């Protein structure tokens, strides 16, 4: 039976709690509190209530029929996480962690953000539960994702620009960790993806599993069976593991994670550690496949989508790749953009650039498959935040 992580937070050789001593008691407390509340009926009921009435779950599954017909192969279905309140899957996890923070008596929450979706989700739940909220965001991402910065401010959060390193998601993580170490007693770190020190990879996965658990009920209702392939984009890996995990022990369902290929794996300018077989290393509290140079320094990544622009990946994806249960591929910037356009034109849905990577892979393989095959793509977010990026690429000033 597949049962990870082990009690010390390891997924095989991956995961762990690689943190400075000051924070070890904090992650240990978090682990204990999470294990205590995870199965608490009151906690579960409150989480379910918020997901239903505040987030708007369950999110529907939609048959992208015109798009599928245009490709002439497998049928593409979309799990519509873009329809959630705040426009992405990130809110599922942010609510779960905020409810835990509330029970732990923490009145101050911090978060890192790349695309800004996790920052917005955290700012939203902080407003909802009356908590102070600080969001760390790379200075470059602040440029790329200006609308989300404004949204966070409207929601009452303080957005702190991070100027160090590559000025993107990994540097925002570093800065959030520095805040946490300084304010460890008052502060809950709402981490945005299924990575980081134990228990985060497990906890974020559990909160995001609502995606796959719903899909497992919805697909048989719609088509009388489970899909042949489930596909999701992988930044840190939270939307992907949320869809994948409930399917791990379902036979005959193929699992494909899509990383950001940037300018192409061969160019070295990408954010696809699994596809590129990056060496195993340690960053941000966990041991994972990590983009690094021969001296163990983390290298700068590139992706058109800020939410995928990260040199590591969550430990459970590393394990799923190692044991061969999931496959990981990369989609380049231009392929993601083409998929973005296709979904706009064929279905009237503007996807996030992150989600466009998953979609692009579905578009790539659908024509090679029979018409009765079914691909379920996690449409992890909507594209409103990406208007500036896409306009700039198309040479349009808004």
């Amino acid at each position: 039976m597949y049962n990870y992580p082990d009690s010390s937070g390891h997924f095989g050789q991956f995961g762990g709690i690689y943190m400075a001593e000051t924070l070890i008691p904090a992650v240990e407390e978090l682990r204990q509190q999470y294990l205590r509340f995870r199965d608490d009926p009151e906690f579960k009921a409150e989480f379910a209530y918020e997901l239903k009435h505040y987030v708007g779950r369950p999110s529907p599954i939609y048959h992208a029929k015109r798009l599928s017909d245009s490709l002439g192969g497998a049928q593409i279905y979309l799990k519509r996480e873009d329809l959630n309140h705040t426009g992405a899957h990130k809110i599922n996890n942010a609510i779960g962690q905020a409810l835990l923070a509330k029970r732990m008596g923490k009145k101050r929450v911090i978060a890192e953000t790349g695309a800004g979706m996790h920052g917005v989700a955290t700012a939203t739940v902080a407003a909802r539960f009356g908590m102070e909220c600080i969001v760390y965001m790379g200075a470059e991402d602040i440029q790329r994702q200006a609308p989300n910065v404004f949204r966070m401010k409207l929601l009452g959060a303080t957005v702190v620009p991070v100027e160090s390193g590559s000025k993107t998601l990994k540097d925002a993580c570093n800065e959030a960790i520095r805040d946490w170490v300084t304010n460890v007693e008052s502060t809950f770190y709402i981490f945005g993806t299924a990575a980081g020190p134990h228990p985060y990879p497990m906890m974020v996965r559990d909160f995001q599993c609502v995606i796959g658990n719903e899909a497992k009920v919805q697909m048989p209702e719609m088509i009388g069976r489970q899909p042949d392939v489930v596909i999701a984009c992988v930044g840190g890996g939270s939307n992907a593991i949320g869809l994948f995990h409930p399917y791990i022990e379902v036979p005959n369902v193929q699992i494909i994670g899509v990383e950001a290929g940037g300018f192409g794996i061969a160019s070295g300018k990408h954010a696809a550690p699994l596809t590129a077989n990056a060496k195993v290393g340690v960053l941000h509290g966990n041991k994972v496949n990590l983009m690094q140079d021969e001296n163990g320094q983390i290298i700068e990544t590139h992706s058109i989508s800020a939410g995928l622009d990260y040199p590591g990946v969550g430990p459970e994806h590393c394990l799923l790749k190692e044991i061969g249960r999931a496959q990981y591929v990369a989609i380049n910037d231009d392929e993601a953009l083409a998929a973005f356009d296709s979904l706009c034109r064929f279905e009237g849905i503007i996807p996030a650039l992150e989600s466009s990577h998953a979609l692009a892979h579905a578009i790539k393989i659908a024509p090679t498959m029979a018409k009765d095959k079914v691909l379920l793509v996690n449409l992890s977010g909507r594209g409103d935040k990406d208007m500036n990026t896409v306009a700039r690429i198309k040479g349009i000033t808004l």
Partner: protein
Amino acid sequence: MSRIQITFDKLKQQQRKALIPFITAGDPSQPLTVPLLHGLVSAGADVLELGVPFSDPMADGPVIQRASERALKNGMSLRGVLGMVAEFRKQDATTPVVLMGYGNPIEAMGWEVFAQRCAEVGVDGVLTVDFPPEESHEAFEHLQRHHIAPIFLLAPTTNEARIQQVAKLARGYVYYVSLKGVTGSGSIDLSAIEDKLPQLRKHIKLPIGVGFGIRDAATAKAVAKLCDGVVVGSRIVQEVENSTEQNVVANVSKLVRELRQAIDQ
């Protein structure tokens, strides 16, 4: 007996406390690191903490972050740092050198190769900030085999059970992080240190060094009264940053001499 133990034993006989300065290897330049190390010793340092720069120094404040960036820009690597220790050892066979940094550069080299190289060049201890005891089995095994001391951090948040765990694994000395925060931040609370030390001493039989937030001679003196060694990092790195290549050794030596005098008073 290890160089670290000999050093602390001697200090104890003399009823003195250790002064443990930190610099980042390769900052302000690679050729200046070994002269800086010798300068620190001449000015009165007992143990040297040599920072191995890392691209993502999560536990460090802005001063040491900038030092790491400068060092990496200067082409500093873990391999290069080990070479510097070999160079240093040509003229100094007695002062303990402890490498301090993050785990990934060592993971990339491999713990076995790293520990062996440490022994060859004369490194005495290794402090890996993001490797707590729970994740240090492999590191511990290789370092032990080559008689390199694994140095561990303890923090104000560390509870008794963890102190016991660290007591079992630690060799050389133990580094007590005197405040909740990154390096160079805040100011330290002497009475909080005083309150915590008996709990540490109950289990830790090794010398205890205290660091983080020690910025001037007066604080160094007050902290020295409470423990066995005073670690000064950001303040020294700041002096490196504010100096020119011409006067950096002199400026840093002057600062360390002041700290030495204060501690010995």
